């Protein structure tokens, strides 16, 4: 119960519960919209911004935000060339940004070590960091609640969504903006590499277990927060890096969910029709 007595651990625990819940719920929509790659890419692409903020002595949140905006602009610019395509544009931009960030981080003047930027510094969270994470997480949760219907229509039936008053492309853009907000909020504590685990693993586990969208959202938030608590407890107990421990806890929860509920049947899982169904009824 060391967690309850140390101020450092208490702040880390609170930050993990807040971020885990917000990232978990957001992750459900990211996975339903098949944007896991975007989640990983955005997190990696902000590394140069983090390093530059560290060099300039500016708040890391500012650097993370700037890094995301710069990466999004570069991706949009590269994707305008139809010969390149959006996936290649994302790949090239992210690799370039990550490499640039790593080179900058090797400069002797960088106060924060590369390891801290990549893997986070949960125990270094100040009260200000905690408040910032709380505000950003509340923003994400509020936006998801208000946009619930639009997200449902955009995921379920993008072809018919416009006739239901929903523009799927706008919904996807808004979700990516929320992803950027959540990543900025979580990157300081969990690091550039490990934030992805909290965005994807609890959501993937919840999608195995939940029978409705709402239950998946609630489960993912609970599993995200639970992964934070479990990971921090293990980290304190066996003295390993907290961020890595949280990521491993999140993945372990997913593995347990996958064991408890193996993959869905082909009929429920995809668009494929049986040969008989595809032929239709003879007239």
């Amino acid at each position: 119960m060391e967690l309850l007595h140390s101020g450092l651990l208490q702040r880390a625990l609170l930050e993990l519960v807040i971020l885990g819940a917000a990232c978990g719920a957001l992750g459900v929509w990211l996975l339903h919209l098949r944007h896991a790659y975007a989640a990983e890419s955005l997190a990696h692409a902000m590394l140069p911004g983090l390093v530059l903020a560290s060099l300039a002595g500016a708040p890391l949140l500012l650097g993370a935000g700037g890094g995301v905006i710069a990466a999004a602009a570069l991706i949009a610019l590269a994707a305008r060339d139809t010969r390149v395509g959006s996936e290649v544009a994302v790949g090239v931009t992210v690799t370039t940004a990550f490499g640039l960030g790593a080179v900058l981080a090797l400069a002797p003047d960088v106060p924060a070590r590369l390891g801290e930027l990549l893997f986070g510094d949960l125990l270094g969270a100040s009260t200000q960091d905690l408040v910032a994470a709380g505000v950003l997480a509340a923003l994400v949760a509020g936006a998801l609640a208000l946009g619930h219907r639009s997200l449902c229509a955009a995921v379920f039936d993008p072809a018919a969504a416009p006739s239901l008053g929903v523009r799927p492309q706008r919904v996807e853009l808004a979700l990516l903006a929320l992803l950027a907000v959540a990543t900025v909020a979580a990157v300081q504590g969990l690091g550039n590499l490990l934030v992805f685990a909290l965005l994807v693993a609890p959501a993937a586990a919840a999608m195995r277990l939940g029978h409705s969208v709402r239950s998946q959202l609630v489960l993912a938030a609970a599993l995200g927060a639970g992964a934070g608590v479990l990971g921090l407890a293990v980290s304190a107990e066996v003295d390993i890096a907290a961020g890595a421990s949280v990521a491993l806890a999140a993945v372990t929860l997913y593995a347990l969910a996958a064991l408890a509920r193996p993959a869905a049947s082909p009929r429920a899982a995809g668009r494929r029709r049986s040969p008989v169904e595809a032929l239709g009824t003879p007239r």
Partner: protein
Amino acid sequence: MTGGPPALQVNGLSASYGPGRPALRGVTFSAAAGQAVAVLGPNGGGKTTLFRALLGELPVAGSVRYGGAPAYVPQTERSRLDFPVSALDVALMGAYARTPWYRRIAASDRALARRALLRVGLGERAAERFGALSGGQRQRVLVARALVQDARLLLLDEPFAGVDRASEDAIMGILDELRAEGRVLLIATHDIEQARDWDRVLCLRGEQIAYGPPAPTLTTEVLEATYGDEIVVLGDGERAVAVQHHAH
């Protein structure tokens, strides 16, 4: 009810997906309240383009006049079957457009959605997951969603493709009721024989080939101009089958 002034008036409509040659051009037709129009054409002939243009999703030239926003009933396999929503959830989507983002869906709309599911014969399956229903049942749920939208113009994309006989009869019955209520139905179909049962046929192949009542419109010449080598005329020339070539 198949007479009266036009409830849908389309004049010289062209639609494109971007700069350059339009994907569909020269479409002019009108439909009175209560009329069902079969939209025929080969794959890529412009049926979906016409629907997207009428839904306001594509830049168009020409004029389109109708009352209120149309409802679109897509083919059921275009929906995400792995998304965990119930039949009632899907029917309720018909109320999204009239519900402000900051409000919950009204109780009256919930009652309307339940009635719509009852009307398509799925009242007892309201809580079942959409993806677990049969193809025909899913199509009926999508029709129920259009009923909740309460649109005067319905665009139905091959509503009978891949559905079982019971669902086909149920959908046909609902469409007849909708016509009796004075709604205009545009039904994209590959089934030429079925098209003969509707009030009008619109033949498309990148442009409008023909429009009018089925009997005088669906001539061998019109069908050949619409389908090219994808048409097979049977027997005495009064029956024709569209043979769709699919790319693999």
